């Protein structure tokens, strides 16, 4: 059978309408158990946003304890024991165990139930098939399975707060041997305890990501529209493509490690436990012979590519928005693509830079220090290309553009402050201090999450046919930007003053951070302004939440291409029907043909055929390649 013929036939608009009438799906199949990539994308997005907010709430509770250690949490404090159990916050005062639970679950939920589902799965699902002109993902049922695996995994993580003993409390990295023995013993169920549920939930989350990754890569390879060659793919698609590979290859080793830790906890093996361990003063009866370092290697083999899983989709989103709002082609498209590929490759051989203090040996450290510094090169190329893309553009500061431009310096600060951590001599001092917290939060919070907000504001009209409100978008943006910086900038200073990231009392009991003052406040005293900034920033999300839901029904109605963008998703109706496109999209040109000379409009969409006159006129323009 001729493949191309089959493609042509079922894009026929009449045939499409006919099938649509035949298969009018009920509510449950249409909105809940849907196999449509757009619905699944939105499901992922809403769940991801809820988890992000939940993870943020956990952090806001921790911030109280850090700023005012040992004091009762006002107003809501006395109700929390009813939710999280009497061991969590007796009289509104946080117990150390509960604080540790909040820390571990904040990290886990933010990364694996919040940002990955939102950045990778939600935007990937909704946008990628539209941008490549595909009717759906290649495996719609697998796609639905991926979402439901995620939902189950997330639910297990939530349930773990309510089992006896509370949620996992061994850090989001679950280092052994601590994690192998936490939440065991009297008062804990052998299976339904925090750490074991954390492991089981993780297996579901990993399964979800693997199914998603397979689906994304296959979709991008197989379902690109006619004429959409690799070098005509929007940068966002490239970013998702590399991200999918990272998830595909980095997650399984963690799955293996999680199976082994689960065996350690449930079947009492000793994969990660050395012989001669003494727990609570008593020697434990285990065979020993395991290695705690093995867990760290397997964990960070995922953990570091995961960092790029968090940032690459944001790169992609920001690239789309920068080109669109500066009305200029993205500068150095090829360099961006190759950089993202190099990042993808290098991210697999940098993981041990999280383990400088484990005594791996200087040779190993030297190797990983070198690769870690190498990976900053493609990252800098990408950021530079983004900045140059703005140069000379006629910039429109729409709300998505505000977030996208704010992303650039925020990611820049986050990236540059990582360099001291990459050197193992400097890291000996900075390791496990608030400096590290500030560094990676600059990348993930004002970095990735700004990218995500930008993406939400940008593609909202495509999903709903309506724009989100501009004014409230700005009311959301400015306090969030200021809040992020007031929260995280002082943390660099706290960290350099020696404040440890896992101190439960915010450093009050340690003189080290109190000897020096930073702008008049000791390291400990800085906790309070940071916490207030966090709470105020929490309030600043309210305009976003209201704007988001209000605009679904009442936002300003817009046409199919409100941002005057060039890529294929804007040729589909808003919201796109089942099957996406009215006419089979065909791509004739690159993704960012803004401000072509001699054109009436300042944007030329990918599906506009190249005119004969244009062909002769634009021949010599060479792509700038920065390397």
């Amino acid at each position, binding site marked *: *059978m001729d*493949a191309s013929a089959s493609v042509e036939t079922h894009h026929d608009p009449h045939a499409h309408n006919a099938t649509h009438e035949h298969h009018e799906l009920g509510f449950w199949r249409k909105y809940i158990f849907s196999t449509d990539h757009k619905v699944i994308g939105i499901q992922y997005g809403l769940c991801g946003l809820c988890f992000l907010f939940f993870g943020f709430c956990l952090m806001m509770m921790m911030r109280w304890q850090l700023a005012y250690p040992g004091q009762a949490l006002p107003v809501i404090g006395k109700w929390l024991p009813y939710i999280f159990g009497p061991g969590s916050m007796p009289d509104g005062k946080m117990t150390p165990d509960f604080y540790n639970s909040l820390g571990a679950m904040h990290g886990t939920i933010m990364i694996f139930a919040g940002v990955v589902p939102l950045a990778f799965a939600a935007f990937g699902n909704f946008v990628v098939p539209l941008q490549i002109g595909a009717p759906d993902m290649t495996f*719609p049922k697998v796609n639905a399975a991926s979402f439901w695996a995620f939902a189950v995994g997330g639910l297990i993580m939530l349930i773990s707060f309510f089992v006896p003993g509370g949620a996992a409390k061994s850090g989001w990295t679950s280092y052994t041997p601590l994690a192998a023995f936490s939440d065991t013993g009297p008062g804990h169920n052998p299976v339904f305890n925090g750490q074991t549920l954390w492991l089981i939930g993780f297996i579901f989350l990993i399964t979800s990501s693997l199914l998603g990754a397979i689906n994304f890569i*296959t979709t991008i390879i197989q379902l690109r529209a006619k004429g959409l060659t690799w070098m005509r793919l929007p940068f966002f698609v490239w970013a998702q493509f590399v991200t999918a590979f990272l998830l595909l290859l980095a997650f399984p080793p963690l799955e293996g490690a999680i199976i082994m830790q689960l*065996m350690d906890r449930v079947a009492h093996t*000793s994969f990660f436990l050395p012989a001669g361990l003494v727990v609570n003063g008593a020697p434990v009866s285990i065979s020993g012979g395991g*290695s705690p370092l093995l867990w760290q290697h397997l964990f960070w083999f995922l953990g570091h590519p995961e960092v790029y899983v968090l940032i690459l989709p944001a790169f992609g989103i920001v690239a789309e928005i920068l080109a669109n709002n500066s009305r200029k082609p993205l500068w150095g498209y090829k360099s961006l693509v190759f950089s993202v590929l190099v990042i993808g490759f290098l991210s697999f051989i940098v993981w041990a830079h999280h383990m400088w203090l484990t005594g791996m040996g200087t040779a190993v450290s030297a190797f990983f220090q070198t690769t870690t510094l190498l990976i900053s090169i493609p990252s800098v190329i990408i950021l530079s290309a983004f900045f140059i893309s703005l140069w000379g553009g006629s910039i429109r500061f729409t709300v998505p553009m505000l977030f996208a431009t704010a992303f650039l310096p925020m990611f820049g600060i986050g990236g540059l402050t990582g360099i001291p951590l990459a050197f193992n001599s400097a890291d000996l001092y900075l390791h496990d201090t608030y400096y590290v917290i500030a560094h990676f939060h600059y990348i993930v919070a004002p970095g990735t999450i700004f990218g995500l907000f930008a993406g939400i504001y940008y593609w909202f009209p495509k999903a709903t046919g309506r724009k989100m409100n501009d004014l409230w978008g700005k009311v959301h943006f400015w306090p969030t930007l200021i809040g992020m910086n007031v929260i995280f900038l002082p943390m660099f200073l706290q960290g350099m003053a020696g404040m440890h990231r896992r101190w439960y009392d915010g450093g009050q009991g340690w003189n080290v951070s109190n000897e020096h003052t930073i702008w008049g406040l000791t390291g400990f005293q800085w906790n309070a302004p940071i916490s207030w900034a966090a709470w105020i920033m929490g309030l600043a999300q309210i305009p976003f939440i209201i704007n988001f839901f209000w605009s679904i029904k009442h936002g300003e109605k817009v046409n199919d291409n409100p941002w005057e963008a060039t890529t294929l998703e804007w040729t589909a109706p808003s919201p796109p029907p089942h099957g996406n496109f009215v006419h089979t999209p065909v791509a004739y040109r690159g993704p960012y043909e803004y401000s072509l000379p001699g054109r009436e409009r300042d944007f030329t969409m990918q599906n506009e055929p190249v005119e004969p006159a244009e062909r002769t006129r634009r021949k010599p323009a060479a792509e700038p390649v920065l390397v």
Partner: protein
Amino acid sequence: MEIPYTVSTRPDTGLWNAKVGIWLFLASEVMLFGALFSAYIFLRLDAPLGMWPHGVLNVPVGTMNTAILIMSSVTVVLAWAALKMRRYRAYWWYMLATISCGVIFLVVKLGYEWPQKYNHFGAYIKPEELGKYEQYLGNERRAEKGMEPRLEITGHLHSQNAKEYEVALDPVNADPNNPSMDRPHFFPLPVTDKIATIEKEDVERATMFLPTHSAYFASYFTITGLHGMHVLGGVIVFIYMWLPVSKKVYQRNPEHLANRVEVSGLFWHFVDLIWIFVFPLFYLL
């Protein structure tokens, strides 16, 4: 709206969708088992002398299982070829053979080999008490020969009371100084009727051959268990393709079923391949 290239190939990639998908899936599986195998290497290299058991598995049974799995890989290719030739009847029989092989493998593994292990008993003797049990361990001779010491007495646990274990010894402990016991045997030797009494005070750790026994059995049960789950998954998929439901797919478009058999066959070959690694790592080395 249908998704293109589910059955026919995309001209520029030369592939249909599921084939891309299954290869990606197999790549992730390589990483999953890669992690477990690297854990095996890590643990084995780290194991103190005498703490990594040798020759405790049943090699002939393992060899048979290996042959069964390889055979099933052949029959699944024949099943696919039969579909390509549009011979559904032959396909049906080859598929049945494949499913049977998978089921036999699982029954042997979980029904025979595993129980054999967790009915076996082993007691690690405290380092300072090793001399007391020299007649079962033969460590003087081993030290002379430069071999790693024996730290464990194994066999069938006959009875135990508060103070002692009574163990029907494995030949290796019944006759420790016999040079033929220096190397594992291909055919497992039966437990002897020589009974040893081991005082509980002298024992460092005593367990059945369960995952808790040692890093060796922990990785053995984890990896063969995970592999067994993959075999089970493959069998379930094959049963689905063998049932009348799939005949309807065949009647609608025979190529569609052939493709399905091809991708699940690829998965099956992969599961086979994993076993080809598992077998020497645990049975032979």
